[in-house]
């Protein structure tokens, strides 16, 4: 084949990075995505972790517990919205079709969105950590801070897969509603707003059905708290969710073309 038409690996990497960079810029410039994603977890933290936290009996524990559970809550959004709503829009608006006609390197589309979601997850969690360390007076060994950050950055992936699945099945109009219908109830049922032990027994029993529950447990363990410390099991469950929804979404994406 004509050598002029071969892509060097540096050029392919450049294409991936360009795609990721503009995906990030684009979401950053979309206030309806960027503001709630970045600010809601922090606002909740200031409200429930700092202002309404009397600090008397287990104040320190509450601030640290909420850091972990709001981290899990916070990283769900870039995955669910960044994929669910954005893919639904791009599918309906013909952008996905155009990209399929262009010689975009295979995988660049999903990889760019994934990197973007991971970056947003990192921002959300670092902001929470900053608030926890300053206003919340949370003290942890450095290893726990790092473990929580890693949990957040990788923990966004199953929600990317779920979002992608939604984006391939639901129209642009319905996608935000569908995502919210999954995001908010699942956060509650997984004990990310109110610790599970305060929820009815039945809800506690079905909590392992929700991927957010497993991420919440990992986040608690990562920050050295009262999680069940079965991180490997939870991680395996999340990997399973990721692969299953990704496979389902692939079928939908092919059909959408």
């Amino acid at each position, binding site marked *: 084949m004509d050598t002029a038409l071969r892509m060097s690996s540096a050029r392919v990497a450049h294409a991936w990075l360009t795609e990721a960079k503009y995906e990030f810029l684009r979401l950053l410039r979309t206030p309806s995505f960027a503001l709630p994603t970045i600010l809601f977890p922090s606002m909740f933290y200031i409200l429930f972790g700092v202002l309404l936290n009397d600090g008397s009996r287990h104040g320190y524990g509450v601030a640290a517990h909420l850091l972990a559970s709001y981290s899990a809550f916070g990283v769900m959004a870039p995955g669910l919205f960044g994929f669910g709503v954005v893919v639904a829009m791009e599918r309906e608006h*013909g952008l996905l079709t155009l990209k399929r006609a262009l010689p975009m390197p295979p995988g660049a589309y999903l990889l760019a969105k994934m990197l973007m979601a991971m970056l947003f997850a990192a921002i959300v969690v670092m902001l929470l950590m900053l608030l926890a360390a300053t206003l919340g007076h949370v003290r942890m060994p450095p290893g726990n801070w790092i473990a929580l950050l890693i949990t957040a950055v990788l923990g966004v992936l199953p929600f990317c897969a779920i979002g992608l699945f939604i984006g391939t099945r639901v129209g642009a109009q319905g996608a935000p509603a569908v995502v919210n219908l999954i995001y908010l109830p699942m956060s509650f049922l997984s004990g990310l707003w109110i610790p599970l032990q305060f929820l009815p027994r039945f809800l506690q029993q079905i909590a392992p059905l929700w991927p957010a529950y497993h991420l919440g447990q990992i986040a608690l363990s990562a920050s050295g708290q009262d999680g069940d410390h079965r991180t490997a099991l939870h991680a395996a469950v999340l990997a399973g969710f990721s692969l299953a929804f990704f496979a389902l979404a692939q079928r939908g994406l092919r059909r959408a073309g």
Partner: protein
Amino acid sequence: MTGSTVAQLENAVKRYGAVTALDGVDLHVHRGELLALLGVNGAGKTTAVSLLLGLQRPDGGRARLFDLDPQSLAARRRVGVMLQDAMLQAVLRVDELIRLTSSYYPQPLSLQEVARRAGIEELLPRHYGKLSGGQKRRVQFALAICADPEILFLDEPTVGLDHGARTAMWKSLRELVARGCSIVLTTHYLEEAEALADRVAVLSRGRIVAEGSVDEIRAHVAQRRIRCISELNLEMLRGWPGVTQARRDGERLEVAGDEIEAVLRRMLAADPNLRELEVRRAGLAEAFVEITTDAEARTQRKEAA
């Protein structure tokens, strides 16, 4: 495939459920030619283009680009595309959109060169979402030519453009063809096909019902038309040999026929006051209407039988 063919459909069939969108279409696009695909909505133009672009697989027959699978990256790297209803990322600036699209190609043109060729230098720092419809089309055109493609697919490229912008785009298209680029253009502006196309293919109900140069398509309609201001009686004119059609449009009379010289001589003799005489050959528009109506009538007869 001959050496000069860059894209082709071979007996291509595409069905959507019970609807047959393409029903055995053979189409060749040669190097350095502008092929216009004409047809009413639903005739199969967009389906033909999506098969050539590899966006869809034919149910029967095959589609080839540069003798490659149209879905292969190697084929797509030589192609530029402007789709009809693709909404680009509104919050990105025009220069960012060009950089992004250029990054997919091994050897794109420079940003400045793309902007110059598409005539959008002044739009580069603007956000895409803030542009007018016509400006957006020009940006989409810039993305289509950002890697100096060997073949360009343009789906209704001048919809929404004002007169000046349309003329400018026609000029760019002629320059591209002069440099050896092949262009496949779908349009429902017949004057666009008439002004640009080396070859025209007319689609109707998923079949190619006419193919050839603009002159050849025009020749499908042997008729010529007389327009003039005259008091002659329509019923009488319709009875004359050689007249196939006669109608009145205000004070103007329009007569169509095969042996128009004889008809004209008789009209001049019959009405000494006849004035503002005009005789012309059918344009592509008339040819197009006639070809598609014929094709549809044939299909309906076939279905009835």
